[in-house]
């Protein structure tokens, strides 16, 4: 076991797995313990973990990763339509296609670095979005979005003699993927994604990516061709995005072009920065917080607020409701923006920096009052 991964990594992985699998329990008091939202937590967690491999390790900031997310969704839905309703072939197909697409876009965009790279990725993603909306309608079904119909060929299912009565839905070995089954399916992939990201970050290859972020010039004079390193990171993160997009199609088999829009690309950047760029856990937490806000705050309205503040005196309550209503419902972006600004100003390393600072604080106050036996242990 020891040569498979260092002990700290193993503990982190086990802890992460436990937290993820028990989410339906510990998120229930926060009103987020329902499968639909939990699935999204998993899916966007995967998206952010993958994005961090590019942005966090290599330092290349892509503003176009939603394109790969969208391609993953389309590829998965096409697999459902043409091959089989089973989820596994769809996922494989989606990851491969989005990987190829990322190879092409990455090859072109990585000819530049810094802001020019970011702008190029943004341009390609917007191009993909517009193509999906218009020219590529035969593949994407344009504005309506690509969906499953009873008349889809599904050659593999047909060959196996599996018919489907009524509206077709994705399955896993014959099991429907709705509700908690869908959540645990996605959770399995999030844990796997996390594990792979952990391995990459702890490998010589991962160290090279960090070195590229630190000093690309030195890398070149040290004998490394940095382009294929950056391109590999780009393709891997594109495949993660495709996997996330495919999972969204598994839980909700309708792929629309809006998934590729620049706002969606920007969202994953926010998730990563909010949680902590370059950390393993941070991007996942960032994704969860943003999706929580999006779903919970946007569902609040004046009536709910009035009930919430009803303990206040009438006049005061009216004012408070009026003010807080600006921050919920359609105004949830305002709250998100505020939280984002506060975190970036006070914790430039994101939420994970806050966690680290707290841990250091506890360790310091803990060690000053600790028994002598505890103090003999090494600091690390």
């Amino acid at each position, binding site marked *: 076991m020891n040569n498979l991964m*260092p002990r700290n990594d193993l503990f982190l992985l086990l802890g992460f797995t436990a937290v993820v699998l028990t989410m339906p329990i510990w998120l229930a008091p926060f009103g987020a313990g329902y499968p639909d939202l939990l699935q999204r937590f998993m899916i966007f967690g995967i998206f952010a973990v993958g994005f961090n491999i590019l942005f966090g390790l290599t330092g290349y900031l892509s503003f176009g990763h939603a394109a790969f997310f969208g391609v993953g969704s389309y590829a998965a839905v096409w697999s459902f339509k043409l091959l089989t309703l089973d989820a596994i072939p769809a996922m494989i197909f989606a990851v491969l296609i989005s990987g190829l697409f990322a190879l092409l876009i990455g090859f072109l965009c990585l000819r530049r670095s810094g802001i020019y790279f970011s702008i190029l990725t943004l341009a390609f993603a917007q191009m993909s979005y517009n193509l999906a909306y218009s020219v590529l309608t035969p593949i994407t079904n344009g504005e309506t979005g690509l969906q499953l119909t009873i008349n889809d060929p599904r050659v593999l299912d047909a060959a196996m003699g599996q018919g489907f009565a009524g509206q077709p839905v994705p399955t896993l070995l014959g099991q429907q993927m709705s509700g908690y089954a869908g959540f645990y399916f996605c959770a399995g992939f999030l844990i796997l994604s996390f594990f792979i990201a952990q391995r990459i970050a702890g490998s*010589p290859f991962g160290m090279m990516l960090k*070195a590229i972020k*630190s*000093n690309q010039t030195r890398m070149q004079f*040290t*004998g*490394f061709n940095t382009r294929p390193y950056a391109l590999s990171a780009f393709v891997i993160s594109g495949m993660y995005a495709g996997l996330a997009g495919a999972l969204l199609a598994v839980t909700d088999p309708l792929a629309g072009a809006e998934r590729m829009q620049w706002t969606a690309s920007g969202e994953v950047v926010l998730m990563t920065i909010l949680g902590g760029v370059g950390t393993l856990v941070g991007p996942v937490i960032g994704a969860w917080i943003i999706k929580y806000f999006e779903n919970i705050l946007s569902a609040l309205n004046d009536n709910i607020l009035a009930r919430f503040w009803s303990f206040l005196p009438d006049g005061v309550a009216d004012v408070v409701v009026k003010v807080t209503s600006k921050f919920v419902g359609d105004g949830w972006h305002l709250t998100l923006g505020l939280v984002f600004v506060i975190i970036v100003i006070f914790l430039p390393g994101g939420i994970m920096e806050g966690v680290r600072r707290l841990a250091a604080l506890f360790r310091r106050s803990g060690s000053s009052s600790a028994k002598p036996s505890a103090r003999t242990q090494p600091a690390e």
Partner: protein
Amino acid sequence: MAQPNVVLHVADVHKRFGGLHALADIDLQVEEGKTHAIIGPNGAGKSTLLNVIIGKLPPSSGQVVFDGTVLTGRKPFQINQLGIARVFQTPEIFADLSVLHNVMIPALAKRDGMFTLNMLRSLDSETGIRAEAEHMLEDVGMINRRDMLAGSLSRGDKRRMELAMCLIQHPRLLLLDEPTAGMSRHDTNTTIELLKKIKSRGMTKVIIEHDMHVVFSLADKISVLAQGRIIADGSPDDVRGNPKVQEAYLGGAH
């Protein structure tokens, strides 16, 4: 006597920056296993010459040949893989990584080549490379700083670490751009000793240095550069006695 083996040949190189003729008609031959010093006043074109050799800048004309291979037109990483490493005038290091990792990275470049997709292998399993790097850090006297962030080192330590990063690759040709600048007298002497030790192992070196103590204790041959031209070339004693050099560079200080 056998013909001295020229390992690096800078042939008729010119470099212009707009109207500035930074290198004019440079012809330089460096013999295998020797230490060749390049001295000259500020702005003479010394660093520019190294930049042309390692492919950071293309020459305006002329070419650089290393052991029969034309370097001109090759990428910096290809030139490094041929066995040429460089210490920069302002340290080029991985400031966000630990000292140990800074030294392990070049060792991996030497072992695995310009690109390897070894992303499922654990860095902790690289015990050989790690031991090599620790050994190297011992040689330059920095083993106690192994786990520090490279960016937090003093200027002199950054330089020593950068030297370790180059030495661990066992390059055939080592280019040093003022390797002792910013070091204390004591560290300078340690570095000289270290460089002498490498010399006995047969590594060829080109060294740019302002510190005459360093130059005269290391160099087998000295070329003097002034305003982009080589104005004198020869053994340390020749150069020391050359009146042109006294005028252009030493300025009667000796």
